[in-house]
Structures are given as C-alpha cells and as structure tokens.
C-alpha cells in the first residue's frame, strides 16, 4: 500500500510539475499575474508530494518490505537501520528520487525566498525548475520506478553493496546532490534572464547567493567523497580522476568560475552573456554527469547498473534541457549584451583571467574523460586517460591561477593603481618563496622540487589572502572599527581562499612525499617507514552484524615510543559474497599513517603471516580541511548582509513596477 502511495505521489508530482512549467510561462507571455503566481504554489505542492514519495520509499526500507524490487536488491534484514535508510539512495532508482527531492527542495526554497525577486523572474525561474522536474519524473516513471514490485516476494534482500556500508554513504550523496542539483537554480535564473531580457547587476545579485550556496554544498560533497574513498577503498587513494569523480569536479570548476563571474556582473554589470553561458554550462555538466554515471558509456567504479535504454532517455533529456538553454542563449544573448569598459589592471580583469584558467581546466577534464570514448567511436583504438595525465595537466593549468589569487585582495574594481598595490606583495612573495622552498626540508628532512613548487604557491595564497581584510581595516581609525567594517562577503572570500591555500599545501606534500610499502609480517614482526615502526600483532576473528572480519592489530611507534594501535580489517559479507578491506588510519594534521590488510600468505591460515600495505602520507588531512574551509567561506559569502538588505529595498517598491 505504501509503495503504491509513493508511486502515485510521483504521478501527481508530474502533473503538478507540468502545471508549474507551463502555466506561469503562458502567464508571462500573456502578462497574467495570477497565472504567473501559480508557480510558487505549484513548487510547494510538488515538493510536498516528492517528500511523501521519498518517505514511502524510506518506510519500505525501514519495514524490510522485500516485495519492492528496489528494496530487495539493496537491503537486508541484518543491515543496520541507518544503512537501511541510506540505502534509499544506494542505487540508480532511489538516487533519482533523491535528485528529485533536492530539485523540488531547491524550487521550494526559491518559492519562499523570492520576496525580493520581481514576479516575472520568480515565476520563470520556478517554471524552468518545473520543466526540469518533469523530465526527471518522466525518466523515473517510465524507466526507473523505485516502487516496482517483485513477485514472488524474496525472503531476504540481496544486501547493500558492502562498499556503501560506511558513514560516508550517509552524508556524501546528499551533500553532493544538493550542490549538483543546486546549479539548476542558476540555470533557471539564466533562462529567466534570457526570456525576460533582463540581465543586469540586479539579476546577478539575485542569482548569486543561490549559486554560491549550490557551490558550497558541491565543495563539501566532493570533499566528503574524497575522504570517504580514502577510508573505504583500502588503497590510500583520495582522488582517482575516475569519470564519475570528474563528473562532479567539472561542475565545480565551472561553478567556481561562475561565482567569480557573477561578482563581476554584480559589481560592474559586465560579462553578462558570459555569466549566462556559465550558468547554463554548470548545470549542463551536472546533467552530463548524471548521464555518464548511468548509461554505461564509460567504465567507472561509481557507475550504477548500466542500461543503454536508460542512457538514450537521459541523452534525449540532456538534449532538450541543455539544448533548449543553449539555443535560447544563441538567440537572445546577443540582444542583451551591454558593453562597458574593463581594464586589464582591475579586479574585473583579474577575474576574467580566473575564469579563463578555470574553464580551460574544466575543458581539459572533460576532454580527458571523453577521449577514450572518442577514440573508440572513431575506431582509432582503445586508450586510457588516468591520474598521470590529469595530475600533471591540472597542476600546470591551475598553478597560474594560484599565483593570480594572491592579487585578489589588493587589486580594486574599475581601475587599480598597480604600482601602489603591488608594493606589499613583494615582501609576501619573498616570504612565500623562502618558506615554500624550506618547508620540505623542515618537515620531511629532504627537498623536492614538486613539493616546493606546491608549497610556494600555497604559502603565497595563504599570506596574501588576508589582504582584502587588511585593506579595509587599515582604512578605519581602530582595529575594532576596521574589523566591523569588513562585510561578511569579504570574510567569506578570505576564508575560501585560505581553504585553497591549505588544500594546495596538503596536495603538494601528500602527493610527493607519500610512502607506500608492501610487507609480509608474521605475528610479532615489524616493518618501518622512516622513523615509524609498524609492529603486527596478529589477527582476531570478529563477527559483525552482517559480516565476518579478520581484524589485524598493528602497533605503531615513533622513534621507539608507542603512539597508536591500528585495527585494519578484512571483512567478508556473506550475503553478497564480497570481501572488503577496512583500512585503519592514525592521523594528525601533519601526517597520516595508514594500514591495510592484504591477504594471508597461506589462504587457509588466517593466523599465519599476512601481507600488509603501509602508507605514510604527510599533510593528508589538509586536503580535506581545505575543502571544509572553502565550504564555510561559501556560507559566509552567501549570507552577506546585502542579500538580506535587498529584501527590504525591494519590499518598498510598488507591485506594478516589479511586474513590468
């Protein structure tokens, strides 16, 4: 009964979505305010319906209702409750429902926080979001229904993929989808701008907090994904340039370019058509990612069960939504371009270059990801493009950007006096070079060109990031007054850039100085990496709720003094017959010590010698800490006072003017 209710709710949501997409659009064409205002109500009703549907699916998991095929395929009665509830988004059909939940949630939010938006923009944004939701609902209802029943009813489920039975599953997909899907709002704003012909600083001011919020969720989603892979996959990797990872990283790169481009459009009313294009492209890349993951076109560890038939549907959807947006852009954008003057020596100029490097990097990632497919389709052979390629190209393309970031705080809008601005930077550059080159020696005891290069860039970004705040503080009589005068947006920018610097430091050291060692140890034997000694104390057998584990005991000492006990595991999940490696990590900000169980040397003797893999990873934590800082920076930027001030300003303008 409950699954049928959930299914029915989706059909209703489809109907409401159609209303949400069509009625306000027609209302706009006919200047009918009442029809336009339906958009808000429709968005809210649709959200409620999707929530109902989602709760129905969750309840099916809660009750272990194996008559629902999706529940039977992804759950098990012995699965802990929290994973049963997270399993809702563990596979294709349910993850689409999560997508939909996020999409309707964002539309719901827009319908609530739209008091400062003119009625035409607001209704068109919601109409665009409604249209996207219709596509997703059709996809779900026609090809990927999570409420499909299974007869005969299996006695037991096939269990959730053990790789997913980890705290990471609980938080990574929701965060990621919030971001991924959130770019649909920026997309919808762009559509609204193109349709109404309104594209100016005010538009940018409306779109910006939505875009920044989507961006910060995506940042956190990607950071969590990396952290999760590191802890879960058992081989110490934290970013593999896997096609699905790239599918989330490309929107992030373009999204970062977009939030910077929006700054230019908001402050100076320039780069309008470029910002519109980026808004469309960011969400397009999100949709593209959805396609890549579910169509079987690329090989990936993340790929959902693939089905070319579904692939065709998503491709058609992609064509309609993205094609529609880009077609609208091609037709309408030339008409609303308004040129102003942009100096090379200005913040706008700097941000323009920021965009060049970010967009080219996104293009590089796209091309590298699709190259094997392209070569195969043209019958030119089978190729692979992996981490060696992406790592090198990414560094080469992003290093100039890291240099440019340093100038962010000192170059002012419109026209900057370079001579004056650059004076303080000279000292900071010197500090960066000296400290950057010295850090590998100081922390690792040896030098490295690669690590030094990364460290120099990192220190440069870090020491220059306070410039924006410093500049404003200096303009005020006292420190207290100065700090108070710094707008939240500036704090956000500062924190986010600091996050970038921290991230760069982490990557520089974790990539160049990491040590990986395969050893064979019997009980009582040790192996060492540098001054760290790993003593293997044998294995104990542990029964988990739905797995059996061989848990190793490894005591780590530094310079003879015991500092940690690690318990890596090798788990067998009987229901799926899969074997998982649960690595054990001892971490502090300066280094990670990571141990993974390989195999017992003698397959039949779990108490004999074992093969283990040991890792030393310096500054690994900084990689994720940087992401977290960027996340908080984004929150500060999105909640800046002027977005809330705008609410009061718009409220005092008569309705007639707003609807014009």
């Amino acid at each position, binding site marked *: 009964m409950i699954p049928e209710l959930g299914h029915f709710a989706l059909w209703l949501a489809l109907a409401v979505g159609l209303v949400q997409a069509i009625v306000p659009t027609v209302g706009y064409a006919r200047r009918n305010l009442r029809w336009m205002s339906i958009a808000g109500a429709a968005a809210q009703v649709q959200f409620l319906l999707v929530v109902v549907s989602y709760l129905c699916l969750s309840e099916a998991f809660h009750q272990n209702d194996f008559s629902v095929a999706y529940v039977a395929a992804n759950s098990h009665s012995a699965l802990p409750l929290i994973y049963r509830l997270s399993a809702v988004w563990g596979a294709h059909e349910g993850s689409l429902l999560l997508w939909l939940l996020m999409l309707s949630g964002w539309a719901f939010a827009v319908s609530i926080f739209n008091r400062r938006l003119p009625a035409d923009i607001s209704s068109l944004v919601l109409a665009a979001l409604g249209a996207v939701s219709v596509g997703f609902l059709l996809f779900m209802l026609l090809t990927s229904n999570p409420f499909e029943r299974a007869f005969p009813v299996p006695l037991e489920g096939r269990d959730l993929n053990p790789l997913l039975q980890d705290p990471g599953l609980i938080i990574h997909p929701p965060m990621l989808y919030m971001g991924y899907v959130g770019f649909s709002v920026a997309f919808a704003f762009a559509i609204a701008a193109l349709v109404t012909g309104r594209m100016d*600083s005010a538009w940018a001011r409306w779109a910006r907090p939505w875009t920044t919020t989507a961006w910060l969720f995506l940042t956190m989603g990607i950071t969590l994904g990396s952290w999760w892979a590191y802890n879960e*996959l058992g081989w110490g990797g934290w970013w593999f340039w896997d096609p699905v990872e790239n599918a989330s990283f490309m929107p992030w790169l373009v999204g970062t370019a977009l939030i910077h481009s929006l700054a230019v459009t908001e402050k100076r009313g320039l780069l309008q058509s470029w910002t519109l294009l980026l808004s469309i492209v960011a969400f397009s890349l999100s949709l593209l990612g959805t396609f890549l993951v579910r169509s079987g076109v690329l090989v990936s*560890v993340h790929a959902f069960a693939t089905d070319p038939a579904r692939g065709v549907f998503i491709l058609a959807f992609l064509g309609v939504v993205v094609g529609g947006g880009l077609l609208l852009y091609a037709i309408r954008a030339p008409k609303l371009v308004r040129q102003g003057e942009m100096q090379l020596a200005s913040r706008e100029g700097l941000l323009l270059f920021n965009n060049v490097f970010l967009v080219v990097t996104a293009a590089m990632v796209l091309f590298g990801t699709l190259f094997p497919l392209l*070569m195969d389709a043209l019958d030119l052979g089978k*190729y692979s493009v*992996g981490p060696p390629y992406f790592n090198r*190209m990414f560094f080469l*393309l992003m290093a100039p950007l890291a240099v440019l970031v340093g100038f962010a705080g000192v170059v002012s809008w419109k026209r900057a006096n370079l001579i004056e601005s650059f004076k303080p930077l000279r000292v900071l550059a010197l500090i960066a070079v000296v400290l950057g080159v010295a850090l590998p020696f100081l922390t690792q005891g040896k030098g490295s060109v690669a690590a030094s290069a990364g460290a120099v860039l990192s220190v440069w970004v870090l020491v220059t990031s306070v410039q924006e705040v410093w500049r404003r503080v200096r303009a005020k009589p006292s420190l207290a007054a100065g700090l108070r005068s710094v707008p939240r947006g500036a704090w956000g920018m500062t924190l986010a850039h600091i996050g970038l610097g921290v991230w760069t430091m982490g990557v520089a050291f974790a990539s160049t100085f990491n040590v990986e060692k395969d050893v064979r140890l019997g009980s009582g034997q040790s192996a060492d990496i540098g001054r760290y000694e790993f003593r293997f104390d044998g294995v104990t057998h542990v029964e988990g709720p739905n797995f059996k584990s061989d848990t190793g005991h490894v005591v780590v000492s530094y310079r003879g003094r015991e500092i940690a006990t690690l318990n890596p595991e090798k788990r067998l999940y009987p229901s799926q017959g899969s074997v998982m490696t649960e690595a054990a990590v001892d971490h502090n900000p300066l280094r990670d010590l990571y141990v993974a169980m390989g195999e017992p040397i003698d397959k039949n003797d779990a108490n004999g010698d074992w093969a283990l893999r040991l890792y030393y990873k310096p500054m690994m934590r900084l990689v994720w800490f940087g992401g977290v800082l960027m996340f908080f920076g984004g929150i500060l930027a999105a909640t800046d006072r002027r977005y809330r001030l705008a609410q009061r*300003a718009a409220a005092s303008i008569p309705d007639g003017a707003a609807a014009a």
Partner: protein
Amino acid sequence: MRTLVLAALLFVFAGGAFALTPQEGTLDPEQEARYRTLIHELRCLVCQNQTIADSNADLAADLRREVHTHIVAGATDDEVRRYVTDRYGEFVLYKPPMTARTAVLWIGPFLLVAFGVLVALRILRRPRAVAAPAPSADTERLRRLLDEEER
C-alpha cells in the same frame, strides 16, 4: 542483445584473491621508486578502474610481478611499458603516450589557454562602447548601498 549481456556476465575476469603480496627480491631505492611509479601508471584490465598497484585481481598481481622482475633484470621504464602494451595494447597505459593521435590531448589545453588569454586581452583593451540603459530605482539604491560598503 540479451545473449550478449549474458555472455558478458559469464566472462569471468581473471580475478582472485592474491592482493598486496610483497614481491620476492629487493630493489634499491631508485628501482623501488620506478617500480612504484610504473605500477601506478598501468591499468588493471580486470577491474578496469584501478591501477595494478591498487587492484586485488590475480592478473594485477601477475603484472606487478612481471614489472618487478623486469626492473630487477635491468629493463628501462619504456621497455617495461612496451612489454605490457605488446600484450594488452595502449589501453593499459593510464598516461597516454605522445603520438599523433594523442597530441591533441597533451597540447590542446595549452592552446586553449593561449586562446583564452588572447580573447581576454582583447576584451580588456576594447574601447569604450555603448552606454548602459538607465538603471531602475531598485538597482540604483542597491548600488549606492554597495558602494558605501566598498570603501
């Protein structure tokens, strides 16, 4: 179509359990570094989205052993790569070689950057153009408020 899918499913990859077994014989630090770099460059054909360094598959273990043996025997990095590509094709290299076909991959991004920088410079040197349309009361007020905060 269905037979194809069925056949694909029944095609058993040479997968297995021998994972991270350390190699017999030791390498000096330079050889060890080369070994590590190489096994992180070669793709596991079984799992297909891991390097042979990280894969649990039998075939990955076999290939790691081969790389190790070859390095001990004095082969250069290129010779080791050639050994694997002779048998499995270029698919097995995660770092595409520089050939006529892959040139666009290695050079393309830089050409794109050059193009982007040139376009940016052109935009930034553009002379003053069309004047802006009169802003609405809404935007004017916001702009004043903003400019106050700017300083």
